[in-house]
């Protein structure tokens, strides 16, 4: 062998070894974080991390150890606090798989904008986690609650939020990119769904909480919080949250009840809604037209009503439309009167409709929004009445 061949050959072999698997991290060297909570502290931030202990999750034999552990640290920046946590945790924290980012209510009132930069900048993070606000409590406390069914509390909140936003309209899933884009948009303010502790936080921390059939302390998804810029300004109630979701076009499936011909109730399941919002500027006044089209079926009738008759169906359709319209109006009223914050993104529709005029409104959009005229038009359609036509209520009474 000639030297000319030996040298490059050896170099190639050595170079691949010299990389030493740079950046390599074995799976069992990770502390996988399921959720991060952020609260105010004197120093800056109080960061709470919920770490999963994989051995307990996948354990074949039940152990008495908790499946998650929370650690907290304070720091002037999020990143600093996270690194400071290594003093307590055995391994470096891996936040790539976090499911939730929870802000304490007090922290949210002071503004969340600054911390978001870290989460969108860090390369490890997948941006598919949901962002929520801990209502009436600190995120720190909320992350301590153990939950039944789902072993990992963060996963429980994650899936609760996801299913409720699909089947019940009072909640809204918000991911990082959505939050940031509504933060930077001049014509739209962000919203986040809240989450509350039901019961005593102290009991919720204990493993006995999940040993009972009816867990004494539970974590429950609440209603939607409205923001003005990055500051929390207030909470929508249940029906206002629903109204908001109708306007945002998030309703795919929900249930609500309307009055039958008289006082009795009739449950309607909406299966599809389609919303069309148009902005326009008339006489230098911005205006919004909302057209909503809903399709559903009768899920339960507690009254004597012959659903085989078209006129009865028309009557119900009208009631459904009125009901939805009321929900939307309530949400708009709350946003205009109390929050003075355009959480619906109406500004963006005006911007799209008349970019030139928008330049004027843009400067003072929150003021303009307070007096914004919104026309709501709802058309509902009952397309099916289930497997029976006439209700048997009458026969029951006799």
């Amino acid at each position, binding site marked *: 062998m000639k030297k000319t061949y030996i040298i490059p050959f050896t170099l190639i072999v050595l170079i*691949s070894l010299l990389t030493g*698997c740079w950046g*390599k*991290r*074995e799976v*069992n060297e990770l502390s*996988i974080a399921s959720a991060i909570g952020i609260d105010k502290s004197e120093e800056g931030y109080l960061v709470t991390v919920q770490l999963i202990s994989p051995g307990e999750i996948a354990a074949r034999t039940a152990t008495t150890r908790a499946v998650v552990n929370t650690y907290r640290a304070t720091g002037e920046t999020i990143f600093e606090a996270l690194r400071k946590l290594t003093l307590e945790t055995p391994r470096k924290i891996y936040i790539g798989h976090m499911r939730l980012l929870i802000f304490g209510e007090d922290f949210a009132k002071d503004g969340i904008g600054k911390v978001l930069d870290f989460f969108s900048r860090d390369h490890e993070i997948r941006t598919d986690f949901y962002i929520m606000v801990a209502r009436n409590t600190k995120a720190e406390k909320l992350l301590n609650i153990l939950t039944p069914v789902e072993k990992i509390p963060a996963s429980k909140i994650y899936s609760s939020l996801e299913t409720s936003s699909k089947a019940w309209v009072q909640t809204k899933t918000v991911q990082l990119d959505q939050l940031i884009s509504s933060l930077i948009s001049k014509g739209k303010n962000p919203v986040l769904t809240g989450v509350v502790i039901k019961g005593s936080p102290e009991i919720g921390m204990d493993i006995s909480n999940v040993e009972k059939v009816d867990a004494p302390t539970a974590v429950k998804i609440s209603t939607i919080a409205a923001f003005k810029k990055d500051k929390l300004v207030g909470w929508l109630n249940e029906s206002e949250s629903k109204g908001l979701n109708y306007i945002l076009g998030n309703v795919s499936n929900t249930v609500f009840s309307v009055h039958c011909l008289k006082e009795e109730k009739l449950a309607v399941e909406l299966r599809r809604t389609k919303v069309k919002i148009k902005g326009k500027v008339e006489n230098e006044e911005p205006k919004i037209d909302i057209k909503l089209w809903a399709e559903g079926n009768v899920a339960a009738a507690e009254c004597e009503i012959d659903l085989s008759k078209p006129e009865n169906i028309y009557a119900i359709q009208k009631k459904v439309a009125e009901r939805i319209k009321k929900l939307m109006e309530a949400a708009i009223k709350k946003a205009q009167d109390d929050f003075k914050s355009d959480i619906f993104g109406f500004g963006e529709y005006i911007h799209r409709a008349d970019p030139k005029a928008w330049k004027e409104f843009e400067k003072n959009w929150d003021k303009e929004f307070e007096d914004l005229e919104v026309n709501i038009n709802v058309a509902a359609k009952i397309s099916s009445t289930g497997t029976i036509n006439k209700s048997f209520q009458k026969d029951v009474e006799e």
Partner: protein
Amino acid sequence: MKFINKLFETKNKHTKTNKNNQLESMNVLKSLKSNLSENIKFIKTAIGESSDIVIRELRAGEDGKTKIGIIYIDGLVDKALIQDSILRTLMLDIRKVRVESTISSKKKFFETLRDFVLPEGDMKEIQDFECLFTHLLSGDTIILIDGYAQGFAASSRGWEDRGVTEPNSQTVVRGPKDSFSETLRTNTALLRRKIKDTNLWIETKPIGRKTKTDVAIAYINGIANDKIVEEVRKRLNRIDIDGILGGGYIEELIQDETYTPFPTVYNTERPDAIAAGLLEGRIAILVDGTPFVLLVPALFVHFLQSPEDYHQRFDISTLIRILRYVSFFIALLTPSIYIAVTTFHHEMIPTLLLLSIAAQREGVPFPAVVEALIMEITFEILREAGVRMPRPVGAAISIVGALVLGEAAVQAGVVSPIMVIVVSITAISSFVFPAYNMAIAVRILRFIFMMLGATFGLYGIVLGLIAMVLHLCSLRSFGISYMTPMAPFNWNDQKDAIFRFPQWSMFYRPRLISQKDMIRQQNPKVEKPKPPQ
């Protein structure tokens, strides 16, 4: 690579000197003498008085004046045939021949024997010792007549043969179950039985200075590309080696590219696969002494096609072929992707799976790559042991392998259960290939990909795949691009590459291989059969 070439060059010099020696010794083998005893003496010295040579001298002709020598090698010949058609004829039947008068005239004795006396089908005249020895050692019987400087070589080959049995390497559920055997003649006969066409041409030539192994090229004249046939001939003629003991020798000596894990010559022991290849215009190389027949040119797609594909319906054949391509990638990449994803790209794993992997790896002392290497090498050892072991001991291997290494290693916490799954699926997938030599290529490359995955993550694996595809595209098999019909792309040939279209739709032979007589079938358009009235 160049330094390896250097090594070869020095070897070439050696062979040249060897060749000169050989030529000198060949010069001694001159033409036959007219004196029988002198000839026999020469044969005896040349062959070293080996015990298996039989020399029978007898007298024939008027008053037994003419001495005849019969020489053959015991074990290579059909004794009954020699008894019947040579000894019996020369010693007894010759008296009944009416031309006895001509025999007496010594001059024409040789011609008479040839033309009237010996009832032998295949009989050649020999003039010199080189020719004599070739025939003698191939199992022919040599007949020498005193007074003539020439003799006969009568074909009397007949030795113990394994016979036509079921193929071991490429089994099928449906389809012919005969396989080639070690005897060249049997093998050519099997081909002739499949293709009864005058254009099936078989050229035979001995290769190997010492072994003089018969190597036959079979092709269908008019379908096979003449240039490729000529190329095969040229490459075979170029071989100068002392011995050919199997198809593998020929394959390595004539293949286009040595420095590649991918096989560029197809081999099979199934006559139907070879016949199908011949009909596509490919060329078969049959080597005496091995049941494995070579087929060139061989393309990448051929190694993932099984003869069974043509005996089953087209839909299942197509699906199975796709399954083979999937297993190709599973066998190639699973361990490397596992390593890359668990050491570099945790965010790519679904959360629950990550937790499960993390829980399993809890307490495993090695990094994923070491773990994977331990298991893969263990499996390779098991596989090799399984192949080499005497058959009765085989069961022990499976017990040790499956129970001790699989179960106990997991229990002991040396490897994680998921690693066992990864290695198992890899191993099973690599057994799907119908061609063993493609499985070998995947085996080798798997380790390279594992190192790439461990050092550079998915980035490394993708780089490796790009390099592999480039390499595949650069390969040629007897001048045909290895990746045909994908690169260069050909629409018609897609019908029998990854997919297998119904037989009635395959109108043409593969374009690049045959190039002439392209039409495979010209069915008149027939209406669907109607139910009987």
